[in-house]
């Protein structure tokens, strides 16, 4: 294992996010100067820290469910017992690939009601797709020769799955999770249009009230949050695959 040193980009982006969270409540003067036409230049209906927490909670909860479900579906369809479901799964994936996340959200809201629930369900549904694809692609990337030898050495089916297939599939699988989480951070922001309390709230409130300062404050935080998450996965991916490292 390589030392657990965080890369500069992750330090920078997460530092920026924390600094912004700390400074924003004190920056009414700055925004008043930037946007002189706006009456109340600082979003104060809710604290930014609370919004970030609520946003993260929604994304984490939905991603957790999506990861569990997506990995399970991918595993099932790649086992001999579930192989006959593979074409069905491929059809579902092909259809849902064309679904824009915002459409899932918009359909879920009126059916389920407004608030956090439609947001959660839409995020889960949309998050499933990249995870399932990542799992399938990751498992398919494990060389046949490695599997043959694993069997030839006398490893059992579960041991092969845990010790060989999943570790080797992990980088591609993780890339799927990364896509899923990053997209969900964005979709969670849009979810404030259906009444979920997230970082999208200042943006939506700002857009409908012509308050560009609100929009900028929300947008900065959402953008940084997504970048920090992306960088975290980048770092995780490097740590997870020492065998494809470039040292020596």
């Amino acid at each position: 294992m390589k030392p657990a040193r965080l890369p500069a980009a992750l330090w920078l982006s997460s530092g920026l996010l924390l600094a912004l969270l700390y400074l924003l409540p004190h920056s009414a003067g700055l925004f008043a100067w930037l946007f002189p036409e706006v009456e109340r230049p600082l979003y104060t209906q809710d604290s930014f820290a609370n919004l970030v927490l609520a946003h993260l909670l929604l994304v984490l909860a939905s991603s957790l469910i999506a990861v569990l479900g997506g990995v399970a579906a991918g595993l099932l369809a790649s086992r001999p017992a579930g192989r006959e479901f593979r074409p069905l799964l491929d059809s579902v994936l092909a259809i849902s690939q064309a679904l824009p996340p915002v459409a899932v959200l918009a359909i879920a809201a009126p059916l389920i009601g407004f608030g956090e629930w439609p947001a959660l369900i839409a995020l889960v549904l949309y998050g499933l797709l990249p995870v399932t694809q990542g799992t399938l692609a990751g498992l398919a990337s494990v060389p046949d020769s490695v599997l043959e030898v694993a069997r030839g050495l006398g490893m059992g089916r579960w041991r092969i799955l845990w010790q060989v297939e999943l570790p080797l599939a992990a980088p591609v699988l993780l890339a799927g999770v990364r896509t899923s989480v990053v997209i969900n951070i964005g979709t969670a922001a849009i979810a404030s249009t259906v009444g979920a309390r997230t970082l999208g709230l200042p943006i939506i409130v700002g857009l409908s009230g012509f308050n560009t300062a609100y929009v900028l404050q929300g947008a900065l935080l959402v953008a940084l949050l997504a970048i920090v998450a992306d960088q975290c996965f980048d770092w995780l991916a490097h740590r997870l695959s020492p065998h494809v490292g470039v040292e020596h």
Partner: protein
Amino acid sequence: MTMLELKAVNKFFNGWQAVADVDLQVAAGELAVLIGTSGSGKSTTLKMINRLIEPDSGSIRLAGEDIRSQPPEVLRRRIGYAIQSVGLFPHWTVEQNIAAVPSLLKWPKARIRERVVELLELLHLPAAQYLSRYPHQLSGGQQQRVGVARALAADPEVLLMDEPFGALDPVTRGTLQQELLRIQALSGKTIVLVTHDIDEALLLGQRIVLMDKGRVVQQGSAQDFLLHPASDFVRDFVGQSDVGVRLLGLDTVASRMRPLQPVSGEPIAASATLREALSAFVARRVSSLPVIDAQGQPAGVLHFADLLPVAA
């Protein structure tokens, strides 16, 4: 003692017969080579021995015991397995790879480490340098050495090898072939090796089994194949025009050299094959060569005429 015994083994894939009525016996400590073109059923036969493929009919016995009498995983841990594409686990170090089967068998940690180091030394990979490397940091030849070490790790009763040297360059292949012979002489392992390379078969095989369309066409020693091919197919496979040269490859200089006589010129090793000696005669345009032993001391002389066997 018979280590491996296949009796009337058949295997069909979608109605196509891959292996047809194969009977085969391999004695303990014997190195048997299965040879044939691709699709001849040789790999299928090999994989039925460790139950990676289950035969449709017939019986296979390992050390007198039907291989179906125990779970496949348990059987496989008693049998070493190495393949052409090596299949090292890319996310494990060399040490973890070699320790795979001993770990499965729950050997104590100290014993595993000892065994890994011993095997690395046996295969000329200094342990200190290689233990913690990952497969992608090794050359093709080194990877296959680790693959062979992994197959040998738990001291299996039988070693199965599926074209283990097929993907290597000729020089590396030659070195590893010699090492396999050395390891086999040292450990007395029963080995079944699959190849499509007739020279490899003649070099390694104490018993050669030629397969075609799922059937055994001929089995016997290298001499049998070169001197008494059972059919035109065998004759073609062995390489009709090169039979003489290949026969020379089966004997060493030591077996034909004469007692010491002073001859000048560049010497040849007593352990070299007569085939190499022939090459030396022609290349150096001489009719006699001084022979030296393993210690580099003069041991005798070989004349060109000595290449011809004494009339029986």
